[in-house]
C-alpha cells in the first residue's frame, strides 16, 4: 500500500495561464476506498480550478464530517481550509464569507452531512444565497460510518446489505430550487466531461451554486440494485442539456451549429453556452426545472446537467448592503469612526 504518490509528473503536463501545472492544485494522497466516486469529484475540482487559473491562495475549502467531507485534504493543499463538525460547514462558511468576500468559497459536504444532521444549516445557507459553491458528494449512504442508508437514498433502492429503503428520499436539487437557489446542478462522478464545466460555471456564479454529484460508494452502496451505483446511474442517466463553460475574455470557438447554442452570461462576464436541445426555458425557469426533476423521478431517471440558473441573483452581501472591503483590511479609522458618527447612528434609531 502506498502512503505517498510519486512526485514525478508528466514532463509535458499542461500549464495554466498562471504558469502552474495541476500539481499546484493537488493535495495529499486519498485514503478513501479504491474506486470511490468522491475521488473523481476531487479530480474534477482540481481540474476546474486549474483550468480557470485561479490562484490556490484565493480559495477556501470547507467541509463537515464524512468521507466526502474528508476530501478537501486531497485537493488544493495550498488553499485555506476548515473542517468543521458534522453538518455545520454552512455556518463556518457564512462567517468566513461575511468576514472576507474576496475569497472563493467551496463547501464540500455529503448526503448525510447535508440531508440529515446539517439540514437546517443547508436550507438557511441556500436561503441566504451566500456566495459559495456547495457540493454534495451524494452516495445515498453514510459511507464513513459503514454505509447506513441516508436521506437521499431512493425509496426501494437496495444497498449491499440488501434491504430496500423504506422511506421517501429527499431530492436536494428540488429542495434547493424551492429555497430559491440561483444555481442548481446535478452531476455524476463518473462523467467528468460534464462535471468539470459544471463546476466551473458554479465557481463563476455569484451567489450560492448548489451542485449535487451522484458519487457511488464502491464499498457499501454499489450493488446493481442501488440507484446510486455506477451501473444504475449509467443506465438511467438523462442529460438535460450539454454545455460549455466559456471563461471571460475567451473567444467562443466551439463549433456546434449556430442557433443550436444558447449563451447565458454569468455575472463576471463568463458564459455558459448551452447546446443540443432548445431547453432555454428549463435553465432559467424554476417551475420548468422542478417539473423536469419530478418527471425524471417518476421515470426512474437521474436527470443531470445545469438544472436552473438565475444569472442575476443577489448574494447575501448585496442583500445586506455590507462593506466591500474584507474585514481584515479595515483600519482603526473605519472600525472606530468616532463619537460624532456613533451619535448620528444612535439618533437614527430613536
Amino acid at each position: 500500500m502506498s502512503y505517498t504518490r510519486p512526485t514525478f509528473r508528466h514532463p509535458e503536463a499542461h500549464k495554466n495561464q498562471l504558469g502552474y501545472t495541476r500539481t499546484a492544485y493537488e493535495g495529499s494522497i486519498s485514503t478513501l476506498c479504491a474506486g470511490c466516486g468522491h475521488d473523481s469529484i476531487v479530480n474534477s475540482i482540481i481540474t476546474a480550478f486549474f483550468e480557470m487559473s485561479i490562484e490556490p491562495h484565493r480559495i477556501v475549502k470547507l467541509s463537515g464530517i464524512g468521507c466526502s467531507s474528508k476530501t478537501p485534504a486531497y485537493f488544493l493543499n495550498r488553499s485555506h481550509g476548515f473542517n468543521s463538525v458534522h453538518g455545520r460547514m454552512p455556518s463556518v462558511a457564512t462567517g468566513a464569507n461575511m468576514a472576507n468576500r474576496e475569497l472563493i468559497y467551496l463547501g464540500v459536504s455529503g448526503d448525510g452531512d447535508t440531508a440529515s444532521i446539517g439540514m437546517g444549516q443547508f436550507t438557511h445557507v441556500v436561503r441566504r444565497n451566500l456566495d459559495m459553491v456547495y457540493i454534495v458528494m451524494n452516495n445515498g449512504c453514510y459511507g464513513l460510518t459503514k454505509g447506513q442508508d441516508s436521506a437521499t437514498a431512493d425509496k426501494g433502492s437496495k444497498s449491499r446489505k440488501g434491504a430496500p429503503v423504506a422511506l421517501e428520499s429527499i431530492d436536494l436539487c428540488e429542495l434547493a430550487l424551492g429555497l430559491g437557489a440561483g444555481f442548481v446542478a446535478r452531476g455524476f462522478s463518473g462523467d467528468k466531461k460534464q462535471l468539470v464545466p459544471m463546476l466551473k460555471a458554479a465557481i463563476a456564479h455569484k451567489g450560492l451554486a448548489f451542485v449535487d454529484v451522484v458519487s457511488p460508494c464502491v464499498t457499501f452502496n454499489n450493488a446493481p440494485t442501488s440507484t446510486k451505483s455506477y451501473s444504475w446511474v449509467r443506465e438511467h442517466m438523462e442529460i438535460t442539456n450539454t454545455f460549455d463553460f466559456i471563461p471571460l475574455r475567451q473567444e467562443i470557438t466551439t463549433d456546434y451549429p449556430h442557433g443550436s447554442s444558447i449563451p447565458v452570461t454569468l455575472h463576471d462576464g463568463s458564459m455558459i453556452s448551452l447546446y443540443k436541445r432548445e431547453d432555454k426555458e428549463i435553465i432559467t425557469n424554476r417551475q420548468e426545472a422542478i417539473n423536469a426533476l419530478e418527471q425524471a423521478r417518476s421515470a426512474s431517471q437521474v436527470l443531470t446537467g445545469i438544472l436552473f440558473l438565475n444569472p442575476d441573483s443577489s448574494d447575501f452581501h448585496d442583500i445586506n448592503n455590507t462593506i466591500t472591503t474584507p474585514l481584515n483590511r479595515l483600519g482603526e479609522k473605519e472600525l472606530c469612526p468616532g463619537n460624532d458618527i456613533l451619535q448620528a447612528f444612535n439618533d437614527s434609531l430613536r
Partner: protein
Amino acid sequence: MQKAHDRDDTVFEPTGRRPRPIIATNREQLTVKPTNIKNPEYFHKVIDCQFACPAHTAVPEYIRLILHEQYTDAYLLNWHSNVFPGILGRVCDRPCEPACRRGRVEEDPVAICRLKRVAADHRDDVLPLLPPVPRGKNGKRVALVGAGPASLTVARDLALLGYELDLYDDQSKAGGFIRSQIPSFRLPEEVIDTEMGYILDRGGITTRFNTYVADLQDLIEQGYDAIFVGTGAPRGRDLPDLPGRSEADKFVHIGIDWLAGVVFRHVESISRRVLVLGGGNTAMDCCRTARRLGGEDVTVVVRSPQSEMKASEWEIEDAMAEDIPIIDNHVPLEFVVDDGILVGMRFDRVEPQYDKNGRRRLVSTGEEPVFLPCDEVLLAIGQQNAFPFIAPDSAIEFNDKGLPVLDPNTLQSSVPSVFFGGDAAFGPGNIIIAVEHGHQAAISIDLFCRGEDLHRRPAPAVSLADQKLGFHDWIYDSQVIEDGRQVVPTVDKAKSLHDRLIEVELGFPSTVGKTEAKRCLNCDVQTVFDYSLCIECDACVDICPTTCINFTDNGEEDELRERLLVPARNKTQDLYVSETLPTGRVMVKDEDVCLHCGMCAERCPTAAWTMVKFVYQSALAGDS
C-alpha cells in the same frame, strides 16, 4: 521458464525476434485496434532498456537482484545474455541508458552499466555455477577466426552444446580489440583474463593463438562443419595525401596501432605536445593514454562541431576532466616539418552548413590557416574493414563497401558454411553488438549443423508473474524514489595520470549501488488491463501521477494521441488500447512515462489493473 510457443492457452504468440508493429489501425472504422498483449514484443518494448540492448539483457531483473544483494545471481543473469558482465559493466557503449525511461521523467537515466559492474564487483566465485560444458561431443567441428567478443560468444554458446571449437587469433591472448585497444585505465587486464577464462578454460575450445589465418580457403578445406569469421575492422584510416605526411612519418601514428602498441608495451612514452585528430571514442582513448605516457599538452582536433562528435558524451567529459582541450571545426591542411622534425600542423577553420535534407557540409570560413604546434600526432579518424585473408576469387561475395554479403538475420555468407559477425560483418560497432552477432551466428551454425531451416529461429522464453502480495502490497519495490543519478567515485587525478594501469573508476560501493538500483522504475512489471472487469470509475485516471491513463472515444491513432489528457507525442512509445467498454469508450494508456508505480492497480476497486512481472529472455543456440 516456459517457451513461448509451448503454451497452449496462447498467453503469448511466438513471433521470432523482430518486433512487429503492435498497433494496427483499422482503416474502415479509423480506430485503433485493441492492443494484443499476447504478442511478447509488446511488453518487451515497454522495457526500454532491455529492448534497446542488442543482446536484450533483462536489465530491471538484474537491477532488482542487486537491490536484494543477490550479486552472484545478477552476474549470472548478465553472463547468460551478454557474456562479459565485468567488461561491459565498465566499457559498454550502453545503448540502454539513452533509452531508459527514467531519463524521460527526470534528468538522468539509471546508471545501468555501472550497476552491472556492481554485480561483477560483489559476486562470489561463479565458476562452479556456470552451466557445464558437456564431456561428450556432438561430433561437429567449428572454426572461429579472431578471438574478439563476437567469436568468443559463438564459442561459449556452442561449447555448451558439445561442439568442438578451434579458435584462431594472431594475438597471444583472447579478447580482440577489448584487449588490444581499450586502455587499462578503463578496463584492467585481470577483468579481461577472468572473463576469457570463463569461456576458454572449461573445455570444448582449442585455442590457436599467435596464428594468423592467411587464407580462409585453407580452413574451408580442413573440413570444418562451419566457420565463423570474427576478425573485426582492423585497419585504422590514415591521411596519406596530406602534405608533409611522409616527411612527418616518424612522428605520426595510426591511433589503433599505437594503442595496441601501448597495451603490448612496444610503446612506453610520447612527446610533450600531442595532437589527436578525430572525434570518436578512439580519439578519446588516444588522448587520455597520451596524457599518461608523458603528453603534457594534449589537444584533440575535430573537423566537425563538438556537438556532433561521435564519441560518447561521458568519454568526452572524462577527457576534458583530464585537461584535454577539444578544438572543433578545424580541418587538417598539412603537417609542418622543419629540418626533419615535426613542429606542428596547419588547419583550415570551417563552419558547418546544412542543406534542406539536413546534410552537413563543412565550409571554410576563409580565415588564415591556424597553426597548432606539436611534437607527435595520433590519427584516430576511423577504421576500415580488411579481409586480406580472403582471396579475391573466393566464393565469398563482398558488396561495394568491401563488406561481406550476408543475410542480416542469420549472418550467413554466400558460402553457406561461413558466417560473419562483429565488426567484420557490418563495419565497426561495439562489444555488445558483437556479442549479439555471436549469439545469432551460434544459433545459425547450430541450425545449419543440424540441417534445419536457418530462418526458423528459436523463440524467446517469456513468463508472467503476478506481483500482488496480499491486499495492496507488491512483491516488487513499487516505491518511486526521487534520488538523482549517483556518481561513481574515481581515483585521484594526479595519481591516475601517473600510471596508465590504474583504473580511474572505483565502482559504486554497495550502499550507493543500492540507491542507484532503487532508481530503476521496474519497467518489466507491466500494467495489465482487463477491460471486462473495469467499471469506469476513473480511479486509475485520478491517481496516475504521470497522467498515462485515459478513458476516451477510440479514433485514428494520430488523432487519438493528440486527444489524450496529455498528448502522446513520443511516437516511439506505444499506446495500450483496450476493447470497447460499456460506455462505448476505450481505455488508452500512453506507455511513455508510466512509472510502473502500481498506483493504478492499488486504486482499482475491481482488479481490472494488475501489476505483472514480464520476464523476456532472448533465445540462445540450442533453445527451441
